[in-house]
């Protein structure tokens, strides 16, 4: 029977049906992104649809020399450090919290459910809440305070869930062995635990970075007077009717892909090192 795996008999018909479904899904997933990628090289016709005429880089040029478009470069210069900050904090906070959850402590369940609630609360609701909080406290909203917090409230639960999955697989006997061999608590963490869970930490970092870099609803009311990149794009969708929008899409997608590639390849590299030796 097909469903039971290592049989190398002929593939059942369901395989072909589902393979076709999968292929269609991948086309559905990537097709539009590829269309945007191609159209960002549109020529001076400034047409927003196919065909592509006189391919050029002019719309990329326009992005960095803003005349009609907004402050893309400025937005990028805010979004990037914000994403890196969220990434670092997410790794630091969710890894330490993940370790805490390996022991039973009072309030563990409450904190866990709060984290889950933070994950599912609509971003807009949270956005209003943070705005009101900052008003009430008399603090000005800005991308590096209120928006940072808003992003953390969404990235941290993700990071925590990933850490649960990773630490669930980390056998306590590694730590016991390290203690037996005379390692101190800190040495155990540094020499044994962190190297083992490192690939998982990269995954947490990836989530932290991209969730912040692309976050829109939670940023909307919390960034203050200066936009982050997704908000800049949002503004452009209503104002800009040139392929510059596509060019911007291409650029941000490339940045995302670079980050993903960096994260995944470093995970693969580590795993390979582990399975084959250095």
């Amino acid at each position, binding site marked *: *029977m097909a469903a039971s795996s*290592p049989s*190398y*008999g002929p593939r059942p018909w369901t395989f072909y049906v589902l393979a076709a479904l999968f292929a269609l899904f991948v086309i559905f997933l990537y097709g539009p992104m590829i269309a945007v990628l191609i159209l960002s090289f549109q020529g001076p016709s400034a047409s927003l649809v196919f065909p592509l005429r006189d391919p050029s880089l002019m719309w990329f040029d326009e992005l960095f020399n803003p005349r009609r478009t907004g402050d893309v470069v400025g937005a990028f210069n805010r979004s990037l450090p914000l994403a890196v900050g969220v990434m670092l904090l997410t790794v630091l906070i969710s890894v330490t919290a993940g370790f805490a959850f390996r022991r039973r402590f009072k309030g563990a369940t409450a904190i866990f459910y709060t984290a889950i609630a933070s994950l599912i609360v609509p971003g807009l609701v949270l956005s209003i809440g943070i705005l009101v909080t900052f008003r009430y406290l008399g603090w000005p909203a800005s991308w590096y305070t209120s928006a940072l917090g808003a992003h953390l409230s969404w990235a941290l639960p993700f990071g925590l869930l990933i850490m649960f999955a990773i630490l669930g697989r980390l056998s306590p006997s590694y730590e016991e062995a390290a203690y037996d061999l005379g390692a101190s608590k800190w040495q155990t963490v540094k020499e044994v635990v962190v190297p083992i869970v490192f690939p998982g930490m990269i995954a947490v970092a990836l989530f932290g970075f991209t969730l912040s870099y692309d976050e829109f609803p939670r940023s909307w009311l919390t960034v203050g007077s200066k936009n982050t990149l997704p908000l800049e794009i949002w503004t452009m969708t209503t104002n800009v009717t040139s392929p510059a929008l596509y060019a911007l899409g291409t650029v941000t997608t490339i940045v995302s892909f670079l980050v993903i590639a960096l994260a995944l390849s470093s995970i693969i590299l580590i795993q390979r090192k582990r399975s084959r030796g250095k």
Partner: protein
Amino acid sequence: MTTTAAHVSNARPLQESGEIRLVDVAKQFGNTYAVQNINLTIPHGSYCCLLGPSGCGKTTILRMIAGHETPSSGEIYIGKDMVVGKAPVERGTAMMFQSYALFPHLSILDNVAFYLKMRNVGKEERRQKALEMLQRVQLDHLKDRMPAQLSGGQQQRVALARSLITNPKVLLLDEPLSALDEFLRLRMRGELKSLQDELGITFVHVTHTQPEAIALADMVVVMDTGRIDQADTANVIFNKPKTPYVARFMGGQNVLTGTVESNSGGVFKLKSADGSTFEAKAGDETASAGSKLSVSVRRDHVALRRGDGTTEVNSIAGVVDATEYQGSYVKVTINTAGGVFVANVSDRAYFAEPVDTGDKVVASWSTEDVHILSKADTGVAGDPYLDGGH
């Protein structure tokens, strides 16, 4: 499905045979053969153990009989039917998985009733029948528990009940005892055997443990990488192994190789590379002078004495490497010029004249206890089973 409840409750006619016949079966995974040239007949109603180290292909054979793998070539018969290509349920086989594969989301009762549910038997009736089956394995009081709440031994009984409710001609057991502790293993071993006696159906049991196979099986099939080396009764396998591999794997044997010097009066005279000589009674075997021949000598048919060198026939000299007390006997490992030789000396004989590591000894045996192997030993250096068994 039009199968009715009445059909299910009909016991399979007794004469329906659970004989299994594999003809030239081979199984390829990618470019490598998992098993090759498998020809085997397991008689109806026998307890057959497939024995071999991990990766030898024994589980592949079991899964092909079960219908969970399709052979790349060859035929498999159960009773009169060629079953290759048939669904497992049409074969009259039931499989008990190594992990037991109890459905974690169903109660014990529903696990056992699963087969009946698949045949659209009504809820009341199937629960009744499943309960009867649970009574047979004495677990009816746990019927509403979930699998995770049971001990390993209990889980295994449930798995057994779930297999038996299909009323199979053949029960296939994949390492059924490997997950149990020593005590339970011995107990379940006895229970499996008596269950098989009671049901009278064919059991095919995969294991990597020699004592398990010897204790249970009417027929032991010893497998080497992808091939059957010998299939026979436990007694024959143990006393008259066919190949050096079987002799080593079953344990309890010393394998010696020599060149045939003469064949007189049905007795071969052999000389090994290190100069020791021994004799073997030629049964049906023929061997010309100058050819290589391997023989086996049971470890417990060896006598030991102190001595420095030997020129006698049927003896070998060496230095004691280790002694290991085993209760009723002492295992003495001797380093000889030709390799490692083991003597299992009864505790009485041993303590009458104890030997210790470093002592020079001579081991000897009688011609009657020498058994000729069909293949000359190719000298499997570093064979992991060299020291297997007892």
